[in-house]
């Protein structure tokens, strides 16, 4: 194994994604532009134009076709990638099921953007969370480094369990904000991520295969179970790949939930994506001021890290779940999921849901502090005032 000397580059989250695609030796990219995803596919096109990447680029006529073409490419044995955001992801919805159902390890970057109307190009996780049940794995990146690492790891995990994966980054906060990213020299990426070995190959004619045919009630059920099982198996693969990544490149991703100060915390903030960067900084400051708080950053939302959540829940009095998303008629989606996991256990910390930052509304360190005050009050009172708080709503 060659010695790892990272290449440091100052790049946007989108460029981090594009570099990862190049380093992963993706073979087919089919894509359609949408703000704020566009610069990912532009950068990839630039790599191709400059002869830096050997990729078949299919400039399709819609996101639906972007996913359909990626599916075709993946079924024909290639490593396939696409990227989108919000309305584009919604348009792909039908084909997301097709990718997972046909067991194709397509990897996609989705830039979290609010759904219209009203039009908004800013951050909001509802677009990706609305695709929760499509059978895709979901990795939420906190920063540009995690976008880069997430794409590389996702290919490895997806191709091991034959389930597609989505790497999710925030609109503008990551997609267009420049930061230092440590990139991995090509030879070392190649060692980490060897060429894909497809589950089946449409270009192998040694026997005729048929993929995606009609299945009667006698068989359909088992197909679904196999996908469910693959998702369950993915947990171990994710941890192993995350650990291997850490051993090779120094950034450990063996935890599906990244934890900080949990052991002696009264309560933790739980959330996903870039807002957890803000939370982590706030928690450091709050700790200095004597607050016994911690954080739990959910990296992988699918498969959902139940076991890790349970461990956290057993050691704290409360969990403040921060959702930059909402399931209408119910509550924040992560909150809903987390509560559901804990129902059949004796670990029952007080859980309160804070809806924050929808549509790109700023979410800052003072906001975290204000929520900490509120949470402290709730825990001292031993009961909830209200379960869901639309924090910083203009009343």
């Amino acid at each position: 194994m060659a010695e790892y000397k990272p290449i440091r580059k100052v790049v946007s989250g989108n460029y981090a994604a594009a570099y990862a695609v190049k380093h992963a030796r993706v073979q087919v990219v089919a894509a359609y532009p949408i703000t704020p995803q566009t610069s990912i596919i532009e950068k990839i096109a630039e790599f191709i134009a400059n002869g830096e990447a050997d990729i078949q680029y299919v400039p399709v006529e819609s996101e639906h076709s972007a996913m359909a073409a990626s599916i075709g490419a993946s079924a024909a044995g290639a490593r396939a990638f696409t990227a989108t955001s919000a309305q584009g992801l919604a348009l792909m919805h039908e084909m997301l099921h097709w990718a997972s159902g046909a067991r194709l390890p397509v990897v996609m970057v989705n830039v979290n953007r609010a759904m219209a109307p009203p039009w908004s190009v800013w951050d909001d996780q509802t677009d990706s969370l609305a695709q929760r049940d499509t059978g895709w794995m979901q990795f939420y990146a906190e920063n540009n480094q995690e976008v880069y690492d997430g794409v590389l790891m996702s290919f490895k995990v997806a191709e091991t369990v034959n389930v597609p994966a989505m790497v999710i980054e925030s609109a503008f906060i990551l997609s267009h904000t420049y930061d230092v990213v440590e990139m991995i020299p090509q030879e070392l990426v190649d060692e980490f991520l060897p060429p894909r070995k497809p589950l089946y190959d449409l270009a192998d004619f040694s026997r005729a295969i048929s993929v995606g045919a009609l299945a009667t009630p006698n068989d359909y059920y088992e197909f679904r179970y196999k996908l469910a099982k693959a998702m369950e198996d993915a947990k171990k693969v994710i941890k192993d790949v995350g650990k291997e990544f850490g051993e090779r490149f120094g950034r450990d991703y063996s935890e599906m939930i990244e934890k900080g100060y949990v052991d002696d915390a009264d309560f933790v903030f739980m959330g996903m994506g870039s807002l957890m960067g803000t939370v982590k900084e706030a928690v450091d400051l709050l700790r200095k001021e004597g607050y016994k708080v911690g954080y739990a950053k959910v990296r992988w939302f699918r498969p959902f890290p139940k076991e890790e959540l349970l461990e956290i829940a057993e050691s704290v009095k409360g969990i403040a779940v921060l959702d930059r998303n909402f399931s209408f008629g119910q509550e924040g989606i992560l909150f809903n999921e987390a509560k559901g996991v804990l129902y059949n256990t004796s670990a029952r910390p007080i859980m309160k849901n804070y809806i924050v930052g929808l549509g790109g509304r700023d979410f800052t360190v003072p906001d975290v502090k204000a929520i900490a005050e509120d949470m402290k009050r709730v825990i001292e009172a031993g009961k909830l005032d209200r379960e869901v708080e639309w924090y910083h709503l203009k009343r």
Partner: protein
Amino acid sequence: MEIPESIKKRLTIPAEEHFFAGHTACQGCGASLGLRYVLKAYGKKTIVVIPACCSTIIAGAWPYNTLDANLFHTAFETTGAVISGIEAALKARGIKVKGEDGVMVVGWAGDGGTADIGLQALSGFLERGHDAVYIMYDNEAYMNTGIQRSSSTPYGAWTTNTPGGKMHFLEKRHKKKVIDIVIAHEVPYAATASVAFPEDFIRKLKKARKIPGPSFIQLFSPCPTGWRSPTDKSIEIARLAVQTAYFPLFEYENGKYKINMPSPKKEPKPIEEFLKLQGRFKYMTREDIENLQAWVLREWEKLKKLAEVFG
């Protein structure tokens, strides 16, 4: 059955079969015949992409596959996009596509999946210039969901959502000319074909194989179930469609139009001969038939002019 050498020499239709018996099409189904010819022309090294349509069923439910070729079932509107992706993947992997010995990537979709919901993906496929063949088998309605109209359904035809009744029939639009839309993309090769003329169809399939870039073939495929026609009349109906100039056979190759010979030399037969074998046209009045006849002749004249000027 062993075919004698003397006959084999005269046959232009390849003798080998890549579409097995035991498929689940209705009796007299034109689409199943068409698929059989496609595989005869292209052989085993073919990747067929089938969207939601009758052929999903014809090709067999899991774990069966009536095709001796690799088959990828896809969502209704995605044929053009999926064959694009497959072609890109083969190229990325350095696998030869099309030409004499390359892998054939074939989209096999109904008129609904082509003229309606899949038109966008078809357009994208054509315009980007992928090396694949798109075949629209035209049974002039959505048969898989129970005979609803498509934009390729002809004027005057009964379907379950354009039924006939006291208020007369509801299908008031003439058939969409999908092939004209295809040609507007300036594709290298586009053609019409009919299951009644398999030699012509196979010749066109082979031509499509040789010509680089995207090819499109619109195959006229009778559907006894949807057309309310006797199951043993499919070929006759398909032949009459050509002889009446309702569905003329022609090719468009690099800007040139060519009408193919089974099409009427002089006067086309009257459209009634085509209509009367099919129950779906029973609600048409004399006036309706004249209306359809006028449309057929007008379109036929147009095509002849095109062949004359751009022949």
